[in-house]
C-alpha cells in the first residue's frame, strides 16, 4: 500500500520550483537584454517564450513595461512569477541578433537554464562594439549627409561632420558617467549646434539654420519612434505609448538646446 509522505512531496515541489525559477531567470535575462538593445516588444515576447519553452516550461506569460518585466511560467501544477528591472534603453543590433540566435538554439532543446544564462553573460561581455572614434566619425558623416538631404550647402558639410562627431563623443562620455538622458540631449544639442554655427559661418555657409539642425540629428530617437508604433500595432499600447512619450520629451530637450544656441549666437530663424 502506497503511503503519502508530505515531506517527500514538499521536497519535490521545492525542487521543481527552483528549476522553474532558473528557467524564468534565463528567459527574463534575454528579455531584458532585448529590451535594452532596441528590440520591438513582439520580438521580446517571442524570444522570451522560445527560451522558456526550450528550457522546459509548459506555459509562459510575459508582461512588459518600459522599466520592468514580469514573467510567470508554469509546468504541471507548479508556477513561478519573477520580475526584473530594465536598464536604459538603447540600440545595439549586434547584441540583439546574437541573443535572438541563442534563443533559436535554446528552443531546439538540449540546454540547461544554467548553460543558457552563462551563454547570455558571455554574449553580453564578448559582443563587439565599434570603437568610440569610429562611431563618432560615422555619426558625424551621417549627420552631414542628412544635412545634404535637407538642402544644406557644401560649405557646411565638414563643419557639421566635425561638430556632430564632437557631440557624439561628449554624449557617449556623459552617458557612461550615468548622466540623465534628457539633460544630455539638451547639452549636446546646444554644444553641437553652437560649434556648427560658428564653424559653418567661418566656412561661408549660407544655410546656418539647416547646419545647426543637421548637427543634432544624431540625437533624434528614430528607432524608438518606429518601435513605439510597432508596439501599438502589435497590441502593446502601454509600452508603445511610454516609448512615444520618451521620444516626444527627447525632441523637446533637443529643440531647447538648439533654441538656446540660436539665442546665444543671435541666429535668426
Amino acid at each position, binding site marked *: 500500500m502506497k503511503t503519502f509522505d508530505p515531506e517527500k512531496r514538499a521536497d519535490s515541489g521545492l525542487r521543481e520550483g527552483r528549476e522553474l525559477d532558473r528557467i524564468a531567470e534565463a528567459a527574463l535575462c534575454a528579455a531584458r537584454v532585448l529590451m535594452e538593445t532596441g528590440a520591438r516588444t513582439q520580438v521580446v515576447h517571442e524570444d522570451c*517564450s522560445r527560451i522558456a519553452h526550450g528550457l522546459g*516550461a509548459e506555459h509562459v506569460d510575459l508582461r512588459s513595461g518600459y522599466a520592468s518585466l514580469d514573467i510567470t511560467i508554469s509546468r504541471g501544477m507548479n508556477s513561478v512569477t519573477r520580475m526584473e528591472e530594465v536598464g536604459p534603453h538603447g540600440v545595439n543590433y549586434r547584441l540583439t541578433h546574437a541573443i535572438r540566435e541563442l534563443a533559436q538554439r535554446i528552443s531546439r532543446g538540449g540546454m540547461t537554464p544554467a548553460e543558457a544564462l552563462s551563454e547570455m553573460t558571455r554574449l553580453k561581455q564578448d559582443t563587439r562594439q565599434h570603437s568610440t572614434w569610429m562611431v563618432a566619425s*560615422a*555619426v558625424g558623416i*551621417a549627420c552631414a*549627409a542628412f544635412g545634404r538631404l535637407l538642402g544644406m550647402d557644401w560649405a557646411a558639410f565638414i563643419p557639421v561632420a566635425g561638430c556632430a562627431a564632437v557631440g557624439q563623443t561628449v554624449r557617449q562620455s556623459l552617458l557612461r558617467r550615468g548622466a540623465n538622458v534628457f539633460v544630455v540631449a539638451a547639452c549636446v544639442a546646444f554644444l553641437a549646434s553652437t560649434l556648427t554655427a560658428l564653424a559653418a559661418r567661418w566656412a561661408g555657409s549660407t544655410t546656418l539654420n539647416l547646419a545647426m539642425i543637421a548637427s543634432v540629428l544624431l540625437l*533624434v530617437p528614430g528607432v524608438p519612434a518606429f518601435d513605439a*508604433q510597432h508596439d501599438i500595432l502589435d497590441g502593446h499600447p502601454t509600452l508603445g505609448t511610454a516609448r512615444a512619450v520618451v521620444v516626444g520629451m527627447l525632441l523637446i530637450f533637443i*529643440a531647447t538646446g538648439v533654441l538656446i544656441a540660436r539665442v546665444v549666437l543671435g541666429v535668426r*530663424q
Partner: protein
Amino acid sequence: MTVDLSYLLHQALFGGLAASGFGILFNFGWRDLPWCATSGALALAVRTLGQEAGWSVEAASFAAAAAVGCAGQLLHARLGLDTNDLAAAGCIPMVPGLFAAEGILGWYALTVPHPDSPAATAATALEFTLRFIFTIGAIGTALSITTHILPNRDQGGMTKSGRTERLGGLL
C-alpha cells in the same frame, strides 16, 4: 514625369551614407553595413521618385518605407539576419528631424511676450508638427504593414502556449 538623374543619385548616395553611419551607431556588424547603405539608398531613391511625381513627403516616405520593408523581407533568406532592423536603419535618413525641431521651435516662438505675427507663427509650427507626426507615422505604418503581410521566419514563430505557428511566407 521628368526625373533629374543627378538629384536622384545625390539623394540615394547621401541616404546610403546616412544609413550606414547610423548603422555603425546602432552597432551593426561590418558584414551588414553595406546592406544598411543599400537600404538607405533605396529608401531615398524611392522617396525622391515619389516627390518628383508630385506626391507629398508623407506619401513618398510611406512608399519608400514599404519598398525597403518588402525588399528586406524578400532578401531575408539570403541575408540571414533580422531584416526588420535593416529596414529600420534604411528608413532612419527619412526621419523628419528638421520638421520636429522647427515645429517645437515654432511653438516656443509663439510663447515669447510679444510675438511677431502670431497667427502665421502658429500656422507654421502646426504645419511642421503635423508633418513630423504624419511622416514618422507613414514610415512606421509602412514598416509594420510589410512585417505583417510578409512575415519571415523570425517573426510570430511562437504563441504563448509554445505552439509553433506555420507562417505562410516567401521562405
